[in-house]
Every structure is written in structure tokens, then in C-alpha cells.
């Protein structure tokens, strides 16, 4: 037990979840029994709450089954699955996950690049330092989900459609942590480290490449981890209004049709994707920092 804290906690959460399923879904069962004019024994009620088609709270195994069905099973046996049609099925979360992933990556790259450039501007330019940062913060207080449809309409009208509008929203959310982290990182060298460069009368480029950039690496990676998760959120927000596939669409279309299980499956798919992306960044971080001698 105590050897595997994470497993124990997960098991406890699952147990809680299962227990919560019963009261959350019970009302519906009693209503139905009422409407049918019959009694509902407790045992049957409990069993039923675990197997509703449109539960208020689906049981964990229902979500797992849905995840399995809408990935492996759909691709293997679906009419448009990989097996029969040779291409990924638009009913599978793999297909939608890939759409989301590609927009996320594009947005992440744009956001990170922009964030780094902005950070360099802030660190090297006094005017930018004093004027840009409050606006960067203010920008994050704008409810982007409210703007997303308009951004998409406007971009569509100038002929930009598909991946790019979503990626732009993703970039909008991911640039901020990168700016904050990089500004901190580029300012991380202490006075002595900077003075050392001065005694060498090193050029600005040397100071940047040999001092500021290396010191900013741990900060950069920490922000990349936040940034990539934010990019995923941005992509999903961007996908909600454009019904062209992606996990965001699955979230919402599940909601249109009251298919709670589908919402939960899409939600978990998104969380798994997020955790995977953050994990990959963490892996790269460990490698890079190790090579730089900054980890252990």
C-alpha cells in the first residue's frame, strides 16, 4: 500500500468516483421507475446507475470502455476505420487527437517563438520593459473563448482557415508563460556573472549566447511545460466553433447530444494528450539540462 502512493491515491479516487455515481444517477432511475409506475429495489438501482446511457456521472469503466471503443475498436471494425478504409476514422479519438495535436504543436511553436522574441525585447529594451508587461498580463484576462469565434470568422474572411486560426489562439495562450519565464531566465545571471563578461569586454552577442541563454534554460523549460498545456487548451477553444474535427469538437458534440460518456472520453483523451506533451517536454528538459550539467 504505502509503497505506491500514486496508485493508492488513484485507487481511492476511483472508489470515490464509483460511490458518487450512485447518488448522482439515482434520481433518473427513480424517475423512470416512477413514470413506469413500478418499484425499484436498491440493488437494481445501483446496478442500473453504473450502466446508464446518458448518466449524469458515468462510471469509470464506462469511460474506459468508451475510450477503447472510440479508438481501437473503431479503427479496427468501424465502417471508416483504419482497417477497412486505410485511413483513420473520423469517429475515432485518434483521428481527432491528431487534429488537435497538429494545431497544438503549430500554436506552441508560434507562441514559444513569439514569447522568446518578446522576452528578448523586454530584457534588452527599456521602453518595452516598462510598457509591454502589464499588457501581456491584461491580455490574459481577456476571455479568449469569447473572442475565438470572431477571430476565426475574421481570419476565414481573409482566407485563412483550417489549422492556422486554431493555432493562433493556441499561440495566444502559450506565449504568456514563455514571456514571463524567459524574462526571468534571461535576467537570471547574477551581477558577478555579468561583470565577468564585462572584464572580458565581451560583445552583446557573446553575453547573450554564452551567458543569458544558458542561464535561462531551466526557466525556459518550466515555461514550455505550462505553455504546451496552455496551447492545448487554446486549440480546444479554437475548435469549439469550427466543426471540423478535433477533441474540442468531440467535447462539444458530446454535449449537443447529451452524450455524457462521450464528453468524458474526449476530456480524458485531452488530459492524456496534455500529460503526454508535458511529459515529452520534461524528458527533453532532463536531457538538455543533463548535457548542460545543470541536473544532478
Amino acid at each position, binding site marked *: 500500500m504505502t509503497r505506491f502512493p500514486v496508485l493508492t491515491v488513484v485507487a481511492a479516487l476511483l472508489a470515490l468516483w464509483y460511490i458518487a455515481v450512485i447518488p448522482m444517477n439515482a434520481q433518473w432511475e427513480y424517475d423512470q421507475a416512477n413514470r413506469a409506475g413500478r418499484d425499484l429495489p436498491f440493488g437494481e438501482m445501483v446496478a442500473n446507475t453504473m450502466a446508464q446511457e446518458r448518466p449524469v456521472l458515468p462510471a469509470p469503466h464506462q469511460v474506459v470502455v468508451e475510450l477503447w471503443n472510440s479508438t481501437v475498436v473503431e479503427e479496427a471494425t468501424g465502417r471508416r476505420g483504419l482497417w477497412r478504409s486505410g485511413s483513420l476514422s473520423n469517429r475515432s479519438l485518434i483521428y481527432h487527437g491528431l487534429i488537435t495535436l497538429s494545431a497544438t504543436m503549430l500554436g506552441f511553436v508560434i507562441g514559444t517563438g513569439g514569447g522568446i522574441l518578446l522576452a528578448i525585447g523586454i530584457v534588452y529594451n527599456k521602453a518595452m520593459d516598462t510598457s509591454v508587461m502589464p499588457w501581456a498580463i491584461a491580455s490574459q484576462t481577456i476571455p479568449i473563448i469569447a473572442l475565438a469565434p470572431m477571430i476565426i470568422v475574421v481570419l476565414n474572411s481573409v482566407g485563412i482557415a483550417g489549422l492556422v486560426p486554431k493555432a493562433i489562439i493556441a499561440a495566444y495562450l502559450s506565449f504568456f508563460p514563455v514571456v514571463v519565464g524567459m524574462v526571468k531566465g534571461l535576467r537570471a545571471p547574477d551581477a558577478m556573472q555579468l561583470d*565577468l563578461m564585462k*572584464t*572580458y569586454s565581451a560583445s552583446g552577442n*557573446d553575453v547573450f549566447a554564452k551567458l543569458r541563454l544558458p542561464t535561462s534554460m531551466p526557466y525556459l523549460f518550466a515555461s514550455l511545460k505550462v505553455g504546451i498545456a496552455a496551447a492545448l487548451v487554446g486549440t480546444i477553444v479554437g475548435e469549439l466553433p469550427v466543426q471540423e474535427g478535433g477533441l474540442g469538437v468531440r467535447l462539444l458534440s458530446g454535449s449537443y447530444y447529451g452524450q455524457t460518456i462521450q464528453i468524458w472520453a474526449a476530456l480524458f483523451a485531452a488530459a492524456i494528450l496534455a500529460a503526454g506533451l508535458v511529459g515529452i517536454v520534461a524528458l527533453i528538459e532532463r536531457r538538455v539540462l543533463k548535457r*548542460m*550539467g545543470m541536473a544532478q
Partner: protein
Amino acid sequence: MSDVAVPPVVIEAQGLNLTFTTNDGPVHALKDINLSIHKGEFVSFIGPSGCGKTTFLRTIADLEQPTGGTLSVNGMSASEARKARAYGYVFQAAGLYPWRTIEGNVRLPLEIMGFSKADQAERAKRVLELVELSGFEKKFPWQLSGGMQQRASIARALAFDADILLMDEPFGALDEIVRDRLNEELLKLWARTQKTIGFVTHSIPEAVYLSTKIVVMSPRPGRITDIIDSPLPKERPLEIRDSPEFIAIAHRVREGLRAGYEEAGE
């Protein structure tokens, strides 16, 4: 002191003043400093905490701007001398870049100054040998003890053969035994290369053992209270510390220090 042909003046400060403006009002860190340092001299700065030793060294290296008086280095301004890469500076703490190996750290100034790859490797090897760090080239700073790090930072300052070596309490963090050994090494190096060295220390024996000139400073405002030209010979075995001349100089330094304290009224 030196009998024939006085070597040329390398560092010349006249009426040097430096006042920091802080929230709590101005701090007069250097007041009316007059000092000439000749080529090949080994000058120690000693004085209580906050008397301006570091500030003076930093001013020479153009890391601080004096607010009054003149300072010339090799006949130029400190800033020009810095741009001509005249200084090797060893900071109070080792200050190695943690993402570079020991060798990478020693190569840093060489890369910046545009030495060839081969030259870099050759010089790094030579100075690391000098500070007895051969075999640790590929280690990262945190894999070394504090004393080894400090030696690496000395190697870094030596690598590009600046004429003027400025060292701010380089041995402060070391224990007595290691310190003695590094003191001997430093003296040998100095004798061999004829560099001009400015050296800050808290330790009276260290100052006396190493220097041809000892500058005693006193705080609030930071100023020079005594300049002692050492009569000790260039060759200095460790045992010289028991000689009466040594003890006499040490005594004079201690008296100078104490006077500074009493005057400042702390």
C-alpha cells in the same frame, strides 16, 4: 625600495572618489584615493569589511565609475584598458558558469577573445595544470569542492595572459593548509610572469607574505590609511612568516587596521 630603473607605472589613481547613491542617502565608498602601482608589483589591499576594497578593485577594472578624481591604467582610461582586455579578474566567489565544464569555463574568455581552437585547448591544459586541476577538465563545477572551484576560477583568469591580475579575496573560502599552498603557487606564478597583481584579503599574514606593497584601508568613508612597501625578498619560503621582519610588518598592518576601526568609532 627597488634600487635601479623604477619600472613604469601601470595603475595611477589621483584624488579618486566614489559615492554610491542609495535609498538611505549617499555612501562615500572611496575618498581621495592616491596610489601608484608599478609594473610587476604585487599589491595587497586590506581593511575591515565595507572599507571599499572591492569597490576600488572594481573601479580599476571599469566595473564601477568613479565620481571624482582620475584613474589611468597603462596610460589609458580604465574603460579603454578593459576594452583592450588588460585585466584578469578573480571574484570573491568562484562564479563558474554551472553549465560549462571546468575546461569550458577556462575556455570561456578565450572563445570570447577569439583564440583559435588549438590555442584554446593548449592554454586551458596549461593553466589547469598550473592550479593542479588536470584530470578534472570534464567535470562540472558542482562536482568539485569549493577550493577546487576557486582554483578553476583562478585558472580562468590566468588563461588569456592579461597583464594585470585583480583578485578579490580569492582564497577566502579555503582552509589554512590549502591556502598556504595556493599562496606559494601564486607567488611562483607572479615571479615567473612578472604580472602586476592587485589582491584583496582579510588575512594579515597572507597580505604580508604575498605583497611587495600593502595598502591598508579604513571605512566610512573608505580611504587609504597606510601604504607599506615590503622589504621582504622576492623569494619567500613559508618559513619567512616566523622572521622578525615579517612579524614587524604584520604588526604595523594590524596597528593600521585597529587605528582605522577606532577612528570610525565602531
